[in-house]
């Protein structure tokens, strides 16, 4: 097809008597190429995105021994015993613990800040609105280093506590931004309607405001959890002897990452994917049930 295109195009340009036939073919060929170009482009883009994950998946089944760099044969051992490598699961447990605690604290505090900023007029509100963005805009290295200086100056022993303080700090900004957007999109008439229908201030908040803002809070919490779980730079500065999963992976990279770390990474990825898929299917089903 592609080979034939050249001569045909050339011929089309010669005789006027064939003009009625040639341009049609030329256009259709061009269109076919264009259509295919999009498919090829899409395929390449997806491949680019998913190659590392595919690589990760494959190598989680590698019978590697200590370092997981060269393919040495297929095994299920890593999956059967993900805690097999020393310290992997301790680090994972720490990361989950830190993630859950800092997400909870950041979500509660951030939600309260968001309500204050969205609903009340007070002195310093504009300044707070701006300052809330500062942790998001500051480079993580700078945040991590300055926090470390602070902790050292005040002689705060580094460990679980300092990690959580650091994580809460950078998660709060994201929670405030996400929840505030949700509150801003809320129709004030809904709360007025609740009050009109005999709900006190507290009941209005519990029965109307909170359920309506909940999706924003949930999104903010998920975002915090993934930010906290993912964070390496700030954690690295402020963790002392405590190992988190990202820190474990980074440190082991020097001497070879165990395949078990791959297993955990892959498992988390597919778990997240599964949750998204299930949510989509449920949503789709509910929508179909309605119509």
């Amino acid at each position, binding site marked *: 097809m592609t080979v034939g295109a050249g001569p045909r195009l050339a011929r089309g340009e010669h005789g006027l008597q064939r003009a009625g036939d040639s341009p049609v073919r030329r256009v259709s060929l061009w269109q076919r190429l264009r259509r295919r170009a999009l498919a090829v482009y899409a395929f390449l883009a997806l491949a680019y995105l998913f190659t590392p994950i595919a690589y990760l998946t494959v190598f989680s089944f590698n019978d590697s021994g200590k370092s997981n760099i060269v393919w040495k044969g297929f095994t299920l051992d890593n999956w059967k015993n993900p805690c097999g490598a020393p310290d992997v699961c301790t680090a994972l447990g720490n990361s989950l613990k830190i993630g859950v605690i800092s997400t909870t604290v950041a979500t509660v505090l951030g939600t309260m800040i968001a309500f204050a900023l969205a609903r009340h007029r007070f002195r310093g509100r504009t300044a707070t609105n701006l300052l809330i963005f500062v942790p998001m805009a500051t480079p993580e290295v700078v945040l991590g280093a300055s926090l470390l200086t602070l902790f050292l100056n005040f002689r705060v022993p580094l460990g679980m506590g300092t990690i959580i303080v650091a994580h809460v700090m950078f998660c709060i900004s994201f929670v405030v931004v996400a929840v505030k957007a949700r509150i801003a999109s809320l*129709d004030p*008439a*809904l709360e*007025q*309607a*609740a*009050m*009109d*229908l*005999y*709900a*006190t201030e507290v*009941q209005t908040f519990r*029965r*109307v405001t909170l*359920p*309506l803002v909940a999706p924003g809070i949930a999104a903010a919490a998920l975002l915090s959890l993934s930010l906290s779980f993912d964070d390496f730079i700030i954690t690295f500065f402020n963790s002392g002897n405590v190992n988190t999963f990202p820190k474990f992976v980074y440190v082991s990279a020097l001497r070879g990452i165990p395949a078990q770390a791959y297993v955990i990474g892959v498992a988390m990825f597919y778990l997240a994917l599964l949750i998204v898929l299930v949510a989509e299917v449920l949503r789709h089903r509910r929508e179909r049930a*309605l119509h």
Partner: protein
Amino acid sequence: MAGALLSDHPTGDLRLDRLVKRFGAFVAVDDVSLTVPKGSFFALLGPSGCGKTTTLRMIAGLEEPTAGSIHLGTLDITSAKPYRRPVNTVFQNYALFPHLDVFENVAFGLRRRRISRVREQVMAALDLVEMTHLARRRPAQLSGGQQQRIALARALVNQPRVLLLDEPLGALDLKLRRQMQLELKRIQVEVGITFVHVTHDQEEAMTMADTVAVMNQGRIEQFGPPTELYGAPRTTFVANFLGQSNLVPGRRVSGGGSHLIPVDCNGQTVLLPDDRCMTSADQVLVGVRPEKVHLLPAGMNPPTGHNRLVGGRVADASFTGVSTQYLVAMPWGQDLTVFAQNVGRGGPVPVGAAVTLGWEPEHTFGLEGETGTPAGRDARVTARMR
């Protein structure tokens, strides 16, 4: 909870007394006093920004009055919290709770007051608005008209002493609006609750309400039954906001019968019943509704005793089916409007024809007019543009 609600007290008429609401320097509601009789259908009519919604929100407890008081019977509810008043609202955009289904939306008020037999009452309210089959739908799955009915059921199920309706039909298309007007009226008669209906649609107000209060710039211009407001407007604003009016500036002259005041309008004398004249000044705006005016060929006279204005020329005629609307240019430079019903007698009057206008003195009203022609003319022109 139920004990805390103020509805346990005896209630009666809704009374607003010298109510004022200021937002900074802007006066939204300016010294409004009103009595809405118990069980009546009351309409607050006015253009947007006239303060009618603010008045409604003060009755609901969603705005705090700057001054004045609100009573329900003997009960002072001026500064009671919205959830303590036996008053419910149908909001402009319905404000249905999107996270609750229709049933739970309607049950919301009952559940907050811990009232028993919720299911029975909710279904009765849904039955009243013919929506029982949609009880388990979410608001997002309903059409505008259906949402409107649910909002109504959600308010009515609480059996409030007063139901407030904030332009509830504004978002509906014309046909549905007509249908809902009749239905609202039916429901109001059926439940016997006092309805206070805010609207900018004069036709809607006149169709539904027993009493209409016309508001303008934070003040009540006039209130009374629709027929009275239409037949004998007290101000130029009312005359032009409720339907159309021909307002001709004139000056009182001496003479006349027992109860008729002669007024000189640009050299022609017309008669005005003294009980329909709202001003004691010499300057009078003589008003008459376009459908009350008859069009006669020039030279022909209306029956004796009727008012007449000669020297008109038809400037424009627009056929609208049931009637023809004529614009008649008068010698003093003013255009007057005449509606002629197409009853089939005589053909349409051609544009350019010389005509005489005639009408009965009883249909004339006199308003306070600013000096000279411009006031009446401007008001009339504005009314036509609207």
